[in-house]
C-alpha cells in the first residue's frame, strides 16, 4: 500500500556556507495493507521526516513514494487534501483544536469530507465509544488530561476510517498507564483492519508489541524485521 523507493530528504542549511542536513538517506521499504509497522530510532534518526513525506507535508529530495500505486511526490497542491483524507495522523503533542469540543475536534475531519450531520453524529459517537470518551464529548481540550487528549487525537485520526494511521511518538508525553492504554487502542485499530505505522523510541513498547520493526539510524534503514525488537 505504501512504498518508498530510494527516498532521500536533504535540508539545506539556512546559512549559505553551512553543511546540508541529511534527514533520510536512500530509504526503501514497503508497507502492506493491514500491517502494523513500528519505526524506531533515536531522536533525529528521520522517523518524523518519513511520516511527513507520507502525508506530503514535505517533498522528497530524491526517490519516489507510492500510496496505493500513486506517486505522491508528484501530487499537485490541490490533490494533497484528498491523500490526507486517506490517512489518520496522531501527533505527540496531540494538535487538537483548542476552541473546539471533543465532539467538534473529531467531527471536523468528517465535515471537511462533506458528510451529512446525522452520519457525523453516528460516526463520532461510535469512535468515542471505542476510545472510551463518550462522557467527554462536550469538553474542550483544556479540560482533558494528557491521556484523554491523545485518545481524542486517535479518535480524530480514526473517525473517517482511513486506510492507514500514522502515529508519531503518540506516547511521548504520557505516563506508563496512559502509554499502554494508547498502544492497546492502536493495536485494537490494527485488529479491526487498519494499517498502523507507529514511530517511537520507546524500547519497552516495541518489545511488547512483537510486530514488524524498521530501525532507522542517521536517516538510513539499518534493520527491518517481521517480529522485531528494539536493538540500537
Amino acid at each position, binding site marked *: 500500500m505504501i512504498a518508498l523507493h530510494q527516498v532521500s530528504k536533504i535540508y539545506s542549511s539556512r546559512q549559505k556556507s553551512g553543511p546540508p542536513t541529511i534527514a533520510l538517506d536512500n530509504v526503501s521499504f514497503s508497507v502492506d495493507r493491514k500491517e502494523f509497522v513500528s519505526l524506531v530510532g533515536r531522536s533525529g534518526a528521520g522517523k518524523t521526516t518519513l511520516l511527513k513525506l507520507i502525508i506530503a507535508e514535505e517533498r522528497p529530495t530524491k526517490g519516489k513514494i507510492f500510496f496505493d500505486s500513486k506517486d505522491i511526490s508528484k501530487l499537485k497542491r490541490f490533490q494533497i487534501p484528498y491523500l490526507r483524507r486517506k490517512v489518520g495522523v496522531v501527533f505527540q503533542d496531540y494538535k487538537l*483544536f483548542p476552541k473546539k469540543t471533543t465532539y467538534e475536534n473529531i467531527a471536523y*475531519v468528517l465535515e471537511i469530507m462533506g458528510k451529512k450531520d446525522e452520519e457525523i453524529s453516528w460516526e463520532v459517537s461510535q469512535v468515542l465509544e471505542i476510545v472510551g470518551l463518550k462522557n467527554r464529548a462536550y469538553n474542550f481540550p483544556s479540560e482533558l488530561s494528557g491521556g484523554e487528549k491523545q485518545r481524542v487525537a486517535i479518535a480524530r485520526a480514526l473517525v473517517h476510517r482511513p486506510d492507514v494511521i500514522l502515529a508519531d511518538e503518540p506516547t511521548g508525553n504520557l505516563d506508563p498507564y496512559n502509554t499502554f492504554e494508547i498502544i492497546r487502542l492502536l493495536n485494537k485499530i490494527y485488529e479491526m483492519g487498519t494499517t498502523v505505522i507507529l514511530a517511537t523510541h520507546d524500547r519497552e513498547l516495541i518489545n511488547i508489541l512483537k510486530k514488524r520493526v524498521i530501525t532507522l539510524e542517521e536517516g538510513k534503514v539499518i534493520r527491518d524485521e517481521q517480529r522485531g525488537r528494539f536493538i540500537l
Partner: protein
Amino acid sequence: MFNSLKRVIQAGYKSFSRNIGLSLATVFIMILVLILLTFLFLLRPTADILIQGFEEKIDISVYFKEYVLGEDVLSIKESIKENPDIKEIEYISKEQALDAFEQRHKDNPVIMESLKEIGFNPFVASLSIKATEIDKYEQIAEYLEASPYATLIDNIDFFERRTVIETVASLNESIKSTLFIFIFILGMIGFLVGFNTIKMGIYSLTEEIKVMKLVGASNWFVRGPFLIQGIIVGGIAALAALLITLLLSYGFDTRVQFFIPEISIFNLFTNNFWSIVLLQFGAGIGLGIFSSIIAIRKYLEV
C-alpha cells in the same frame, strides 16, 4: 456544497464567539479605523464648502465710460451673460454705486463732506461679474476687452485685483492638494492598522491552520471561517461606527457651526448618508475579507 457553506458559516461564527476577547479587540480597532475613514471622507466636502466660501467673495467689476447710458449697460449685460464662464452678473447703476458708497462711509465726515463738495454723482454704471471658476476671471476680462463693447468700457478691475485673485486660487489649490495627501496618508494608516489587527489575530492561530491542513482540509475550507469572521467583525464595526459618527455629527453640529457658520456637519452627514453607509460597510467588510485572505495565504502552504 450547501452543507459545506453552512459549516463554514457556523465555524466562522463559533470562532468569533469563542475567541470573543480577540474578536472584540479587533472590532474596537476596526471601529476606530472606520470613524477615521468617515472623518476623512467628510473632510473633502467640508473643504469644498470653505473654498467655495472664499471664491464666493471674489468678483470683478466692469466700469463703463461716463457717457454710457444705463439701458446700454443693461443690454451689454444681456448679451455677455451668454458667456459660459460667467456664473452671475449684476448691474449696478450710478445711483446704486453712490448709495453703496454713502452707506459704506456714512461715519466718515471728511469723505461725506468731500462728496458734497463735488456736487454731482461721480460714480459710473458698472457690471459686477462672478465667474464659474476662479481661474476664469482672466479669460472673462480678455473676452470683454476684445468684445465690440470694449470702447464703452472705462476699466475692468481684474487687472488691479489680479494678485488677490491668483493668491486665493493658488491657496485653494494648495488646500486641495494638501488635503489629498493628508487623506491618503491617514487612509493608508487606517488601512494598515485594520489589516495588521486582523493579521495578528490570524497569526495566533497559525498552528491550528496547519493542523486543519494536515487532517485534509482544502484551502477554502480553512479560509472560509476566517472570511466569515472578517465579515462579522467588519459588519459589527461598520454598524457601531455608523451610529457613533451619526451621534457625533449631531452632537457637535452647533459647536462646529459656532466656529464655522457655513458648515453643518450633521447636514453634511445626512446629505452623504448612503455614501457613508456604503463606505463604512464596504471598508469594514472589505478590509475584513481582504486582510484575512492575505494574512492566511502563507499559512496554507502546508
